[in-house]
């Protein structure tokens, strides 16, 4: 069952994800990025992304960036302590923290991307403009499971061919694996040619244009969502550039940004998926309450 953000037009959700990645790379301010990270993390939880394994390595990457930065970067005024005669500065910690939060946010956004932009939505987005490329990708998506299946079948046949009970030498096993891979490869190539000839026989390439169809209308909700997304994004980016809010940590250290409005604008931008989901849940609970 798709709800909230997943129900939006793929184009709208794709653009939102793209803009979120851009904002997370451009707004280099620790407090702003933390705000983004919290909201994106909440979104991940709402969408039930498979976070258990990934959370570990995402945090690991963040820690790695945070801890390694002070060791590599020695610029900055406030020296905290010396590490093997190299100064470790507060500013480089700040920079490392900002970069770490930025990277973690981008990774989390991609986790949600994997959940929301399913391969069929991906095809819907690109098959009209780039028909041949999307055909190529589509066929690869089919071939990969097919090849894995073929590999299992081939190795099964090879196993059956050998008498049970005799322990094979390592050299034989290796030779077998070698032959198996070559077989799989040449079989795949021949299969591809055959498929192509069958496609041609059914008229592929006779008509210049290929069309595809997926039930997808631009609804009022989509329009509303795009207006909201654009307004908050442009507001944030406009404030950031308009007031030149980027700070060089190594020169000046960190201060809270001069325009508190940017925190509000960015907050509304990042909160968008949670808001849509929340509205749906509210509707659901009210509909139960009425009846």
């Amino acid at each position, binding site marked *: 069952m798709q709800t909230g953000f997943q129900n939006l037009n793929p184009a709208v959700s794709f653009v939102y994800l793209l803009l979120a990645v851009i904002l997370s790379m*451009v707004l280099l301010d620790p407090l702003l990025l933390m705000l983004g990270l919290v909201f994106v993390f909440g979104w991940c939880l709402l969408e039930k992304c498979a976070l258990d394994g990934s959370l570990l390595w995402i945090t690991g*990457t963040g820690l790695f960036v945070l801890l390694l930065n002070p060791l590599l970067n020695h610029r900055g005024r406030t020296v905290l302590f010396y590490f093997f005669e190299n100064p470790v500065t507060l500013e480089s910690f700040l920079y490392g923290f900002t970069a770490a939060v930025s990277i973690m946010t981008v990774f989390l956004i991609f986790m949600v991307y994997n959940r929301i932009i399913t391969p069929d939505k991906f095809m819907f987005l690109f098959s009209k403009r780039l028909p041949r490329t999307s055909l190529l990708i589509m066929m690869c998506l089919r071939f990969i499971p097919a090849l894995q299946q073929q590999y299992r079948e081939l190795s099964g046949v090879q196993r059956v061919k050998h008498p049970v009970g005799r322990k094979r030498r390592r050299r034989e096993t290796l030779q077998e694996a*070698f032959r198996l891979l070559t077989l799989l490869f040449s079989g795949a190539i021949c299969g591809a040619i055959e498929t192509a000839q069958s496609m041609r026989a059914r008229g592929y390439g006779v008509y210049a244009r290929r069309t595809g169809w997926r039930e997808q209308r631009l609804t009022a909700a989509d329009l509303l969502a795009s207006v909201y997304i654009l307004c908050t994004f442009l507001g944030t980016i406009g404030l950031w550039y308009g007031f030149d809010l980027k700070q060089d940590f190594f020169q000046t250290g960190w201060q809270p940004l001069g325009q508190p409005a940017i925190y509000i604008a960015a907050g509304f931008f990042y909160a968008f998926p949670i808001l849509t989901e929340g509205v749906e849940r509210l509707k659901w609970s009210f509909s139960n309450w009425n009846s």
Partner: protein
Amino acid sequence: MAKKLILPVLVIGVLVLAYTLFLEKYYLPVSFLIILLSFLPFLLRFERQERGAEEILLLAILASVAAVGRVPFAALPSVQPTTFVIMMTGIVFGGESGFIVGATAALVSNLFLGQGPYTPWQMFAWGLLGLLSGVLFRSPSSRRMPLLCLAGFVYGFLFGWIMDTWFVLAGFGGAESYLAAYAASTLFNLNHSICNVVFLLLFYQPFYRVLERVKVKYGLLSENRFYS
């Protein structure tokens, strides 16, 4: 008329945007813009060239073989036959096909393994290796085993360094961090290099024979199209 202008205007717009971002020292977004732009010529040529169904299918199956090789080895860092398959494509079918197969393999395997901000970089790195193989081993007389192995060895490091670059751009800054990252990844890159050389030594002959046979028999993806 207006339709023809869309693309150049778009490209120039992206370049101007990248330049302003570069002046403001937002290096990470700039790098993504430039990487995506670098796909454009290959993408356009692929879309516009006359290609039969056989050629698209062949590219698709090569990309799938490359991608499939990556999935079972995902737990072992840097060990995969993907680079080898992309290299073979570049050698037999030319650099352009090599780029397409490399980029597609990266994109498609990540549809299974999970996309990340590294996807465009992987697409670029593997595409570049395919392109490079096509250019370096254009003439059949240059396809000798020692040279091939040398190329495979260098590719491991090239790929690793390209992937390091994005990570340093994202998380660090400054020249020393690049050197440190390149040095720190040596072990992984060595793994990748050795794996490439082993695959070349074992599988170059049989794979080359299969691909060359298909190419000659069906007249696919070759520069001189007498018989297509």
